[in-house]
């Protein structure tokens, strides 16, 4: 399936290659570079590129292109999903997935890739299994290894490989047994000029960090499971149980994992937490434009709206912006024409605003379209859909774990058209 993998950095250098079958010359990447040149933005490189003898399937993460070389028919999503899994694994191992991190840990990277694919077919992608095979590098372990001569590589077949719960390793021990669940919801919305909602939906995930001894069997139930419209599970969740009782029953993997992602049914009206008053105008014939933006909280159920960040791609004709924020800081990049305004927390008593003028290229005509405003925000301790975890129970082990559940709402792709 996957023949070879090339890692290409932002400047177009191949800094790592790995082959699972016969070696494919790296010149095959020239086709990729060609496509890269044609694309105006890094994201515009097509994910699937045909070449005379091979097919290149690439993903872009952390400004690194992971280019897989394929020789024959394979579902493209198969490769894409796998590449993303590789990136996730790297991130898991090294904390970040940057060129520097990969170069520093090139041996571990190689060992990982060797285990993840056999002859181009995924072999072990489960984080718990991989970590038993190859221990993540830490400074301490590196030190110890140098002194004792022990290695990062496991000698036994990971217990997960053969068990019915391949995602969990056996013999886990913790002194503090804890299980944390983060319910994070993101609002995707498009708000039109007049402030009415064109489309809005809520996508949520439950990320878990479980550090429990032994083989705990957890059940998580919701107060209002009917909110969840479309769900996808970590393989550990027992599907039948969910179907029947709407209860999440699972033996969790060890460590961090995404238990569930869900979509809140579109019947429910989505509460839009902020409103934007905007007045962005360009006058015909003058080289000046007005920019006036005010943010205010809308439906937040009394919770504070935090970490608000407003960004907008201003039209090409804009040379500079001279703005005055009532709070926070703003930056304008004259090259990319990107305006970002770091607002911080919205104070309902004193609404944050950004006012001022934009200078346009002399003689340039008025831009057709006003820029779109993208908003990021966070609301702590609230899931905007109203989803609530009812209880978390543990079976199969004797100790009493510490349980914690946290709610958060974020703006996903939240756009305001002006």
């Amino acid at each position, binding site marked *: 399936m996957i023949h070879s993998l090339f890692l290409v950095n932002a400047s177009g250098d191949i*800094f790592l290659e790995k082959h699972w079958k016969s070696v494919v010359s790296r010149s095959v990447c020239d086709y990729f570079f060609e496509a890269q040149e044609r694309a105006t933005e890094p994201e515009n490189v097509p994910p699937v590129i045909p070449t005379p003898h091979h*097919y290149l399937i690439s993903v872009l993460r952390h400004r690194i292109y992971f280019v897989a070389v394929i020789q024959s*028919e394979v579902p493209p999503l*198969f490769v894409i999903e796998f590449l993303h899994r590789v990136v996730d694994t790297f991130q898991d191992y090294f904390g970040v997935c940057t060129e520097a991190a990969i170069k520093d840990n090139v041996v571990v990277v190689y060992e990982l890739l060797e285990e993840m694919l056999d002859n181009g077919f995924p072999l072990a992608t489960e984080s718990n299994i991989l970590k038993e095979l190859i221990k993540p590098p830490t400074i301490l372990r590196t030190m110890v290894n140098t002194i004792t001569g022990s290695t990062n590589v496991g000698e036994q077949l990971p217990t997960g490989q053969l068990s019915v719960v391949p995602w969990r390793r056996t013999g886990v021990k913790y002194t503090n047994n804890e299980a944390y669940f983060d319910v994070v919801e993101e609002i995707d919305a498009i708000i039109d000029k007049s402030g009415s909602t064109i489309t809005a939906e809520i996508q949520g995930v439950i990320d878990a960090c479980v550090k429990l001894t032994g083989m705990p069997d957890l059940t998580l139930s919701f107060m209002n499971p009917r909110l969840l419209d479309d769900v996808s599970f970590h393989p550990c969740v027992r599907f039948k149980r969910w179907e029947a009782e709407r209860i999440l029953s699972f033996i969790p993997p060890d460590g961090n994992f995404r238990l569930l992602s869900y979509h809140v049914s579109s019947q429910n009206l989505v509460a839009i937490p902020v409103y934007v008053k905007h007045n962005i105008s360009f006058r015909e014939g003058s080289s000046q434009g007005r920019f006036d933006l005010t943010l205010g909280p809308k439906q937040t159920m009394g919770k504070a709206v935090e970490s608000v960040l407003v960004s907008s791609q201003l039209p090409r004709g804009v040379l500079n912006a001279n703005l005055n924020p009532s709070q926070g800081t703003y930056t304008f990049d004259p090259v990319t024409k990107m305006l970002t305004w770091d607002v911080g927390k919205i104070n309902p008593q004193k609404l944050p605003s950004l006012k001022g003028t934009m200078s346009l290229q002399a003689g340039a005509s008025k831009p057709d379209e006003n820029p779109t405003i993208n908003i990021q925000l966070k609301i702590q301790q609230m899931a905007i859909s109203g989803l609530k975890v009812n209880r978390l129970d543990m079976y199969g082990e004797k100790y009493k774990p510490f349980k914690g559940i946290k709610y958060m709402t974020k703006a996903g792709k939240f756009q305001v058209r002006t």
Partner: protein
Amino acid sequence: MNSLQVERGAEDVYLSRMSTGASYNDQGGAEAAVEAGQESTPTSSGAGAGAGAAFGLFSTDFKKNEDLKEMLESNKESLKLEAMKRVVGLIAKGKNASELFPAVVKNVANKNIELKKLVYVYLVRYAEEQQDLALLSISTFQRALKDPNQFIRASALRVLSSIRVPIIVPIMMLAIKESAADMSPYVRKTSAHAIQKLYSLDPDQKEQLIEVIEKLLKDKSTLVAGSVVMAFEEVCPDRIDLIHKNYRKLCNLLVDVEEWGQVVIISMLTRYARTQFISPWKEGAMFDENNEKAFYDSDSEEKKDQMEAKTYIMDPDHRLLLRNTKPLLQSRNTAVVMSVAQLYWHLAPKHEVTIVTKSLVRLLRSHREVQYIVLQNIATMSIQRKGMFEPFMKSFYVRSTDSTHIKTLKLEILTNLANEANISTILREFQTYVKSQDKAFAAATIQAIGRCATNISEVTDTCLNGLVLLLSNRDETVVAESVVVIKKLLQTQPTQHSEIIKHMAKLFDNITVPMARASILWLMGEYCERVPKIAPDVLRKMAKTFTAEEDIVKLQIVNLAAKLYLTNSKQTKLLTQYILNLGKYDQNYDIRDRTRFIRQLIVPSEKSGALNKYARRILLAPKPAPVLESAFKDRDRYQLGTLSHSLNTKASGYQELSDWPAVAPDQSVRNVEVIEPVKEWAPLVGKAKQRKSDEKFYSDEEEEKEEEGSDSSGSEDSSSSSSSSESGSESEEESSEESEKTSSDSGKSSSGSEQESSSESESQQKKKKKTKKAPQKKSKPAAADSDSDENGNGPVAPASSSSADSSSASETDSEDDSDSDSPAVQKKKSDVKSKPKVEVKSKKEVSLLDLDDFSPAPTTKAPKSAVLSSSLLSDLEGLSLSNVSPAIQVTTPSFGPVKTYELLHHMTGKGLSAKYHFPRQPCLYQPSMVAVQVVLTNSSDHSLEEIHIGDRNPASLNLHCFNTIERLEPEASVTVSMGIDFSDSTQAANFQLCTKDDQFSVSIQPAVGELFMPITMTEQDFSKEQGKLLGMNETSETIAMATANTSSQAISKQVLSVANVGVVSSTQNNIHRFAGRTVSSGALVLVSLEMKESSSALLTINTEKSVMASMLLRDLKQALAQA
């Protein structure tokens, strides 16, 4: 330098590790130089030299590799490890490290596992180039293949098979074969991977490899399944026949297979299903669950007929696949979700495909690349099935942050989704897009508007006006695109739009984009008669600027001139000539050619040919309007989700999805074969094993059914409904167990039966179950027999007919044996029906454990009836009873105890008494015999010895005696079974029952009803056969019915108590049909009872044996008349 390096390494490994990154950079030159030297190696399959060669210009420092070599050869493990790490670093950078091969390969047997792994990495990378040296390592792997640690065995096989050295092909082959039989599933998985490697190394091994694949396909481990299917796809994707036997297993394992394997298996099964099942998309076909369930109802009948029938009935295996893949839509793996979606798209009945929509839309939240692929697939789907995605239209609204290809795809989908109802919303959305700063996207939007306008006639005018407004847009591309689209739109309906053409002519001066100008000119020419005043004026302007125009515009000017010349030569003759002259000397030969051609065509001269006459018709011919259609129109020729689909070209290795077969291939091929026992009744372990998978098959189905039920009732109340059904089934479970117990108890109580008979019934029972599962199965001889029976010829095979039996007789017995609390038992039995899972399980226990103490009668019937009814009940869930009601009666054991007849009274028998009854079991001894059970009781005060059968009368009577009973104690009784061939007559069989001292003449006179064997057939078959047995072979009479007997249940009860026949399920409520055949000659006996008003009925019996018919008629009449 070398020594220095070694020193450094020895002192400070840890430090050097920290600085590895830097040191690799330093080495760039050296390795590159080596690589440049080795460029000719055959491995680099791509074109041209590696980019690394460029570094060859720099210093050539081989010494660094020397230093690595020395580190590798040192005896310090840490040094070696360090060196290997650096070597791996080189490989990772694409640098050549092949010259280190000898030094590295020595470490292959090292104990340090990390070092070993790194050596493996190296070996796999370079073995192909250094084949001779690579052979040195082989023995190490061969040894490791025998290691007790499965992990080491597996990794040895991995590396061994990854070394692409043709010489070791036989060794690899051997290793693969051995590993395929390994204890550890992990090793077997590895061997499945190795198969592909060996195949790509040496395709000649195909045949042998297929054998291994065949073997591994049978593997029950979920770990292996994905990998072996992958190997199958790679090596022999066309050997669909290998899948048959494993199809159900794969379906059932699917959920537990790891996610990557799921993708591969699903796509393979999609292909498989397209070759094996018939299309669920037939027009006029009914897809409702009723139909599908009706299938189960008919399980004991001939299915083929139903298949041929007009209503489409889905193959249960087809349904199995759909059901078992459905939960995977919830997978976190996008590839799995996509593959399930494509499976549904290609295999499911149209109305079921919609369940994938939500999941696909969910995937749009994922990474950009995932979105791209998913949108492509949705685009293709949305062309054919608008309705699927229309509710989710808003999910396809474009965001300014989307990348260009995502935007275009979303636009494509929105356009596909547009219909009368939503077009206004979509157009409003498009208005925003048109203003987008991304001009390419704006242009694409205009095209999309054009498409909407052509597809939906209601909005054509609105769109056209909107587009005309866009003509005054400041942006060139937008205007140009608008003109082009307007041109196309006008062409479709030119009549009313001269205003627009005029408007465009006015704008003409401001438009500079050549394509747009050309389009306007073409419009002028084409519709010059509608704008007679403006057109010549435009031509005049163009004549002035001709030389400065682009080629494409020039061509259109020439065209315009020609057309105007033909329509309005008075005004334009000179202009045309002027333009033609200009064109004649143009730089571009296309224009010169065109000019010459036009001149010859339109200007009359002596030389001008015959074409001149037709000039008008040539130039001003009505032109068909261009069709504005989706770019994804033709993509559906590729399987969704494939690379080929994504690229819209056939990728290498693409496996075409075949069309549905017109006639379904033999379904029985999927039945898992069981080794046929030497004697039918010999219990086999293999069977039990086999049953396990079957059991799963059913249980899953059952669960699915529950699921579906809850689905249909809406997600809102699904939780409650499904949970209730759960609890219900639990209680059923209990009761079924209970009833099982009673039946087995009763089995024990009826002691004295031979073991053969019990095991016989055992095997029948198994068979019965199998036939139930796949009634068409022909692989088994017995089943084949039953087929021939039904066709009316061939000998009556007792086993087979019993397997086809609806178990009426045995039913009676069990009631009899299990005391008189039959109502209670019955109730339990009917409970059992609803839980096939439990039933099957319990049956298994029965057959495995209780072999010895089982009398034949109860064993067969309890499970039989339950199995039959299980499907029935599931059919009945939520369904109307109408079409299945008659069939229920078979299974409810509603008729009373079987009659027992006296053979010998204890007074006449001097203390020996004998009673007999007809167990209605197929006779074990000879198929033509009727089984008779005789209960011998000693009621005297002394024991009787040597009880046996003596002379018989007539002497030719074919009789199977029971073995002599040596001794019968006082008050003891024994049950023996014998077989009597009555030769289809009710003539009594006379024989002597002897004890040591006495002989008693006895006779057994059978009721006519006992001379039959029940058979099962479909209603169609019944009427077909009945058609053959008319005239003399038909006996009928209108009879009076007792009022108590008018319910169908009562009728069945009465008829079955009289005659050993089988119920034929009927779709008509007022006609009851029963079928049987005579035991001895196998003649068909068909009984039908048509209910009339006022408790009378027409009883018809069709059979060749008219004597028997009249006797049967008499008996039935009597039975039905009495309450």
